[in-house]
């Protein structure tokens, strides 16, 4: 059984179809890359999957359960969590407190939550930052904090929205390793990223969106050799 099925999902904002008739499915343990030019509807699809918007049409099925109409908190409890393209640190809380907020969805004990949070901070190599205020972190660490906090909710499916956006090559490389480590733990991930090299390296399969529609889907090799993709998306850089 696929862990996630997207069935003919459309999302309209007034006359604009931010997603139209998008369908694909994901198997347990895989990394699905989601690419497309700016405004293609990638973030909107995350919003539809995680309950921020009800899809205008279509269905989202997670572990066999229909998710339409569920609120984000319920979605998180069921095991799906996303990070934010525009990071959302809880600025006046410390780094470890931020991650604890994630962990507290699984426990009522602060002590247990703190242990879980420290564990996730180790995963993203930020233990030394535990007591810093989240609002004072540089962008690279804010992105990692997003990941640690999402991981602390103990998801079955992790959705990452441009966690490498705005990072320097060394920081991006660290994130790539992090994503691969998370995969090695058996966690399923969907990753939005603009950096083609990175997405090729980490993805098992890639879905390409343009103007809200799914242009194609396949292995990284299939996608880069697809003429439509080259025309629509990679045009300039591969010309």
């Amino acid at each position, binding site marked *: 059984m696929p862990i996630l099925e997207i069935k003919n999902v459309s999302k309209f904002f007034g006359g604009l179809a931010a997603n139209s008739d998008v369908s694909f499915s994901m198997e347990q343990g895989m990394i699905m890359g989601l690419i497309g030019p700016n405004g293609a509807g990638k973030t909107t699809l995350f919003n539809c999957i995680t309950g921020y918007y009800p899809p205008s049409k279509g269905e989202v099925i997670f572990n066999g359960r229909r998710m339409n109409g569920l609120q984000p908190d319920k979605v998180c409890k069921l095991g799906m969590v996303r990070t934010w393209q525009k990071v959302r640190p809880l600025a006046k*809380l410390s780094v470890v407190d931020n991650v604890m907020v994630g962990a507290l969805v699984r426990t009522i004990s602060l002590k247990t939550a703190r242990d879980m949070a420290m564990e996730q901070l180790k995963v993203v190599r930020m233990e030394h930052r535990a007591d810093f205020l989240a609002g004072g972190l540089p962008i690279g660490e804010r992105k990692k904090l997003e990941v640690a906090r999402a991981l602390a909710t103990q998801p079955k499916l992790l959705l990452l929205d441009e966690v490498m956006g705005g990072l320097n090559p060394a920081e991006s490389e660290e994130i790539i390793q992090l994503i691969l480590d998370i995969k090695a733990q058996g966690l399923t991930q969907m990753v939005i990223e603009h950096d083609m090299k990175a997405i090729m390296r980490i993805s098992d399969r890639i879905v390409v969106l343009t103007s809200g529609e799914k242009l194609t889907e396949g292995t990284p090799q299939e996608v880069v050799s697809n003429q439509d993709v080259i025309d629509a998306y990679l045009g300039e850089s591969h010309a």
Partner: protein
Amino acid sequence: MNKSMLKAAIGLIVLAGLLVIPRFVESPYALHMMILLFLSVSQGQSWNILGGYAGQYSVGHAAYFGVGAYTTMMLMYSKQVAPWVGVWAGVAAVIVVALVIGSICFRLRGPYFVLASIAVAEIMRLSAINLTTLTNGAEGILVTEIPAFKIGGRVVTDFLTKVPFYYIGLFLALLTLAIAYWVQHSKLGYYFQAIREDQDAAHSLGIHISVYKNIGLVISAVLTSLAGSFYGIYVGFVDPPTVLGLDVSVQIMLICIIGGMGTIWGPVLGSLLLVPLSEALRSNMITEGLVKIGLVSADSKVGLFLKENLAHAHVLLYGILVVLVILFMPDGLMGFVKKLASRRKREAA
């Protein structure tokens, strides 16, 4: 001795001091000031739980204060219900009011809660004025005699001096402090603060936003209602403006905003500043002081003007105070104290 032991020791000494004050202090005025201080701490701290921790600004806490006060007083006045029973009726009433406001406003995004909180307090005030058969209307309710409090036939107190009120006030202040401390050090406090900092992030991390806002509102409203009931029986009189007026709501907020929102000690600091200040204004102490140090002469135009008006100017002065605090200490007195402390630490290092 480490830092937390030192803190605990200081806490115990202060507590012991507060407990024995009535044994040594006879002046009813001094006890009265202490009682006002306790009342202010519990008001400010109650507001803090919702406003400071969860970031939901109520500009209508007079609704809970007044409903608590009125319920207790009405029951005592017309049904001879003892206040320690009536208080719970007030709590029940306030929970209903809070849940009605909360369940409507907390579903919506935007400033609905702030606006609704003002509106509900005004509705309560107007009801108190107009439901004259229940509330005596604008005349208010005067209760001069509180029944003696007995346990097993033994009179514990007959409420004839200020001392029993001192201890009830102290207990109330400590109770609200303890509850705020417990909130801050529990899942609830983490969730409140997450909602305050970023509602979308909080939602995505599994927090049911409206449920937790309602929990915060109910805790805050119940504690405010207890403070209101206490105020009613202490003063022996309630009328619409003194317990349901907009300035009551504003005063409750200011204790916390000036002292420092989202901190345990903020409302205590705020009370230590505001209670003496409003007392000084009320009793015209400030004008007298200015006259005494020779800044203005008592029978000059300025002197007479101040004497006439300063006592009524507390709302204006609070406004100025808030502007100053927002400009120079955005995190309140408590934030200012913390900043000083960390600067000293850095200089020492």
